[in-house]
């Protein structure tokens, strides 16, 4: 299976639905903080925050969207070349007693989210942490699940999922590829490329 899984209109609809689901689940926007995981989680978080503000004008999208870099909390640091550290930006008021919605592009092994939970623990004590992802491709290695999912995408481990966003890549699309890979080789390739394209490592 190779090709485009989500186009720009599909992505827009999925994000709008997730924004509504977040509000429904939390019964409003009270103390919501939307944190994106770099690289592509950050623009996704900003888009979600804007959509939430469109529905609930009382929500300040600029003040309550941020970024959470998890590089220094990864469990695979010394298995890979040194990674550049991204920026962490939090609301002025901090995250104590907030309801945090973590946002990432591809949900895969769950290790990125585990690292994110550790990072949050060092930054404060939120009331709750929820997880929103654009694509859930399965193959979890940890007991972690998403609260809000744009699209469930059954994949083989050897396949690759690439999310491209307007803000970074100039186009909104989700691609799947990997038919040509042999299993062992692609596992390797997955691990190496995940930092820039997949947002989640094997």
């Amino acid at each position, binding site marked *: 299976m190779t090709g485009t899984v989500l186009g720009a209109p599909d992505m827009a609809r999925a994000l709008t639905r997730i924004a509504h689901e977040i509000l429904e689940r939390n019964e409003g926007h009270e103390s919501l903080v939307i944190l994106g995981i770099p690289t592509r989680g950050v623009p996704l978080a900003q888009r979600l925050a804007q959509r939430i503000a469109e529905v609930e004008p009382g929500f300040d999208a600029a003040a309550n969207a941020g970024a959470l*870099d998890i590089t*220094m*909390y990864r469990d695979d*640091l*010394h*298995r*890979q*070349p*040194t*990674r*550049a*550290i*991204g*920026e*962490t930006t939090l609301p002025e008021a901090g995250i104590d007693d907030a309801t945090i919605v973590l946002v990432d592009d591809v949900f895969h092994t769950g290790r990125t989210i585990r690292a994110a939970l*550790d990072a949050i623990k*060092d*930054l*404060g004590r939120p009331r709750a942490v929820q997880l929103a992802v654009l694509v859930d491709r399965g193959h979890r290695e940890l007991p972690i699940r998403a609260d809000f999912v744009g699209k469930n995408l059954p994949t083989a481990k050897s396949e690759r999922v690439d999310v491209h966003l307007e803000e970074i890549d100039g186009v909104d699309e989700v691609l799947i590829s990997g038919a040509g890979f042999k299993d062992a080789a692609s596992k390797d390739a997955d691990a190496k490329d995940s930092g820039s394209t997949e947002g989640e490592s094997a």
Partner: protein
Amino acid sequence: MRHLLDTDSLSREDAIRILDTAGQMAATQEREMRKLPTLRGRTVVNLFFEDSTRTRISFEAAAKRLSADVINFSAKGSSLSKGESLKDTALTLQAMGADAVVVRHWASGAAQRLAESGWMHGHVLNAGDGTHQHPTQALLDAFTMRRHLVGGGKDSGANGKALEGLTFAIVGDILHSRVAGSNIPLLRTLGANVVIVAPPTLLPYGMTDRSDIAVHYTLDEAIEAHDLDGIMMLRVQRERMTGGGSGFFPSPEEYTRLFGLDGERLRRLPDHAIVLHPGPMNRGLEISAEAADHPRSVIVEQVSNGVAVRMAALYLLLAGEEAAE
């Protein structure tokens, strides 16, 4: 990067990567919870053959903030004072499983010897070797300069940038200073202009022949000739400088008159210029109290930036995959 031994061999790309990483590290140090789990289980040895409080404490704080285990090994009260050779010390550290060794030594080239000898596998960070280099000091100076003069006081504004076109004066004992030894190549790599101000007796051989460096023999002359963006005052090692027939300049008073930074000279610098000093300062000798405590002095900030820069260096050397050995 496998070791951090000097700034000559540091590429522009690597230097900027260290400064950018230091910016992120500095941001983590403003949080309530300042410890990061990044280097858990790694061991960093501080191997100090020379007395140094601030550099050792700075490296120790940096390693601990990244959750590494720190072992301090200083010359006083250890086998080092009983005449153990550098080689035997290195073999001991290897046997203890040191992942990185931060070394300060009175002999120029000691860090490089340790790194290239094959005595041990750990990463080596030079924390000052003789009169040669002190690379983390130069990096923290560059980090401080970049934050103030490129980023407008913020690291995020300076991300990815160098020190292109800025002009810095380094004033004092260039001959013996490892701080100058590291700063000159790094500033050149980052695209800054370097102005050297020193008595002729305290210039290294060949410095005046270099076409990429301006040399002046009085501070007033340098302030006249250049629009300085920053001025770095080096410490005068009082004990070494005067007396008998071996002095490098006639008297401390004369040194202060020709090379000291006071309030009057500071006011003749451009308004945005910053004042740096690697410490410890001799107030009243190379820098007056007024200049040291002036709002444009960033001397205290240099110390806290030192921790962030050393965290960055340790992270970049130690966090990645095991290098082929």
